[in-house]
């Protein structure tokens, strides 16, 4: 069954058309990688899916399972299982990671009409996850992304993903700015998250993350369209040949 179904999606920002008809089907259990040069529309796609206000859907549709995403508020999209790991996570000074995650998780549970996790279970889960992501336990008591290093911010995104356990995780250049050790930790996090019941969409410039997370499909975006799709070997081709051969195609 498809978890994410995008058809003929046209999106503009400030009256400029950025996505010019995207078709993409993501099924449960799959990992998709979306690659492409700067300005090709990769981040526009994830922003539109998550519901950022300035990304206007002109036509086409996007569905998460049964739900029509365009009719949902950003928080409802999240509550129904759509997660976006940000390329540039912002700071929220004074709001601790614990408080932030508990508030987020409680909102999810309330929306689904199930009971909130007890503080004890919540903390136990959180401690496991910080350990798994090789984060200092004090990390949880710090303000959200407040004075975090680049690597910590990205690992924090993965922590939030593991904690909220979405159906579809969109990762927007989560690999950028990471050293090789951090990259491996992040990749392990993604692999730990990934199960036959959920799906991952990786947006990336480079092949290097794909050495650790093997995609089932690779899509190349150019100028607001998906111009080529293939299996993991396509990423290697791109690494070798760049994007120009596709532009000419």
């Amino acid at each position: 069954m498809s978890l994410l179904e995008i058809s003929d999606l046209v999106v503009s920002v400030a009256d400029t058309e950025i996505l010019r008809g995207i078709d993409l089907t993501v099924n449960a259990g799959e990992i998709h990688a979306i690659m492409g040069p700067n300005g090709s529309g990769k981040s526009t796609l994830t922003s539109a899916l998550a519901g950022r206000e300035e990304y206007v859907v002109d036509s086409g549709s996007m569905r998460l399972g049964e739900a029509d995403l365009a009719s949902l508020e950003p928080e409802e999209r999240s509550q129904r299982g759509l997660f976006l790991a940000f390329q540039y996570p912002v700071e929220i000074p004074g709001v601790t990671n614990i408080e932030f995650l508990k508030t987020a998780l409680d909102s999810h549970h309330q929306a689904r009409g199930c009971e909130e996790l007890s503080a004890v279970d919540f903390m136990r889960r959180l401690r496991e996850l910080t350990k798994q992501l090789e984060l200092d336990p004090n990390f949880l008591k710090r303000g959200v992304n407040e004075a975090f290093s680049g690597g910590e911010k990205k690992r924090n995104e993965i922590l939030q993903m593991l904690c909220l356990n979405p159906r579809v995780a969109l990762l927007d250049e989560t690999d950028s700015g990471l050293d090789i050790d951090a990259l491996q930790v992040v990749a392990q996090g993604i692999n730990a998250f990934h199960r036959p019941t959920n799906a991952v969409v990786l947006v990336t410039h480079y092949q290097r993350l794909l050495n650790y997370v093997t995609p089932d499909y690779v899509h190349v975006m150019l100028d607001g369209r998906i111009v080529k799709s293939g299996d993991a070997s396509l990423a290697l081709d791109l690494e070798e040949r760049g994007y120009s051969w596709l532009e000419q195609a």
Partner: protein
Amino acid sequence: MPTTDSSPESLVQREYEAGFVTDIVSKNLPPGLTEDVVRQISAIKEEPEWLTEWRLDALRRWTQMSEPKWAHVKFPPIDYQAISYFSAPKGDSPKSLDEVDPELLRTYEKLGIPLHEQKLLAGVKEESEQPQVAVDAIFDSVSIATTFKETLKDHGVVFCSFSEAVQNHPEIVKKYIGSVVPKSDNFYAALNSAVFSDGSFVYVPEGVRCPMELLSYFRINSANTGQFERTLIIADKGSYVSYLEGCTAPMRDENQLHAAVVELVALDDAQIKYSTVQNWYPGDVEGNGGIYNFVTKRGACRGDRSHISWTQVETGSAITWKYPSVILRGNESKGEFYSVALTNNLQQADTGTKMTHIGRNTTSTIVSKGISAGGSSNVYRGLVRMNPGAKGARNHTQCDSLLIGSECAAHTFPYIESRRSDAIVEHEATTTKVSEDQLFLCRQRGIDPEKAVSMIVNGFCREVFRELPMEFAVEASKLLEVSLEGAVG
């Protein structure tokens, strides 16, 4: 796409929950301010002659004074002759809780203020290990009840209404009244000195640590009246007291004046912790009605190693004009000011502090968090003065402003007057906005926009909230949430 307006500014519509009126018969003095009115107030309270004269002197000084114009606030001229200067529920003053009008008791119940000694502040779970709180409840111009008096008396602590203190402890009142805020200190202080009605009085004897938090709850109910309470707290040598005050008023279309005076005196090694959660009616979205909160609060660290700390959470009032200050006279004395001031709609706040360093090795800390939303104006105004004798004095000031939306304003006026080259005065200031990015991060994680804004604002205020006693921290955090509450779109 959803058409909801999710901009931060649309999320801060307040709902004022304490805006109801208690239906009760009051006896009011007719509007107007004359010597005769002052004599009548003094007579109702059966005051000694020296106090009547003290009031009359204040009135004479007041008539020579004019309103301060330097504050960054705007309001039409106040007609001081149109205000009634005394309003009290009709009937004899109650001797005990059983005699208090049930309608009044219900009012405090509705406001979550416990007047029964077994109860705790609303919003806090009743657990036996929770500290108890003694309450002085002031309704318009009179105190209607003070709880835990006997328990406190066992420790030698006096906690009663100001009027009672005048009757039972005249020598202490006479010694200290006006000694920190002189009656001609400023226009509003002079007005208060002439017409002050009730307020709280606290005396903590030498070496006593007050066994519970003391809470005064001020309620304005009558229309066309002002509230002019006066509070005096004296911490004798080596004593400690934590005092809290809260306040609310009904929603009315007219502005009402609240001009209070608070004086604190800390002797050698004494500590006073004074916390305020101010939630006077702020007026409506168009700026109609609301309380003018023109208050003079000052503490004197008279003794060596004494310590006075002001913590305030200001969310209410149409206009706030308030500078809780500390005079650091004792050597090694310590003054602190922690403030959260939130303004929304057309509220105006001009608030801050004065730290006057006189003694040697005196230290002061100022942490001010201003939050402006809607079309409001929020000013921090602070003065740090290092006198010539203040050898080794130090101050640290941190002053942060948070803007929600683009129609509001934040101003910072820090004044530093140092007459010592060795004094250390540090000032840090920041101004930030609740950004669309922060809001979107929260929403993408499933948090609705209102909760997100309130969480972001609470985070911003964290440093101040942790200075509040636990009961009040819960209250303050809830109040911020309510103040920021509003329909999305």
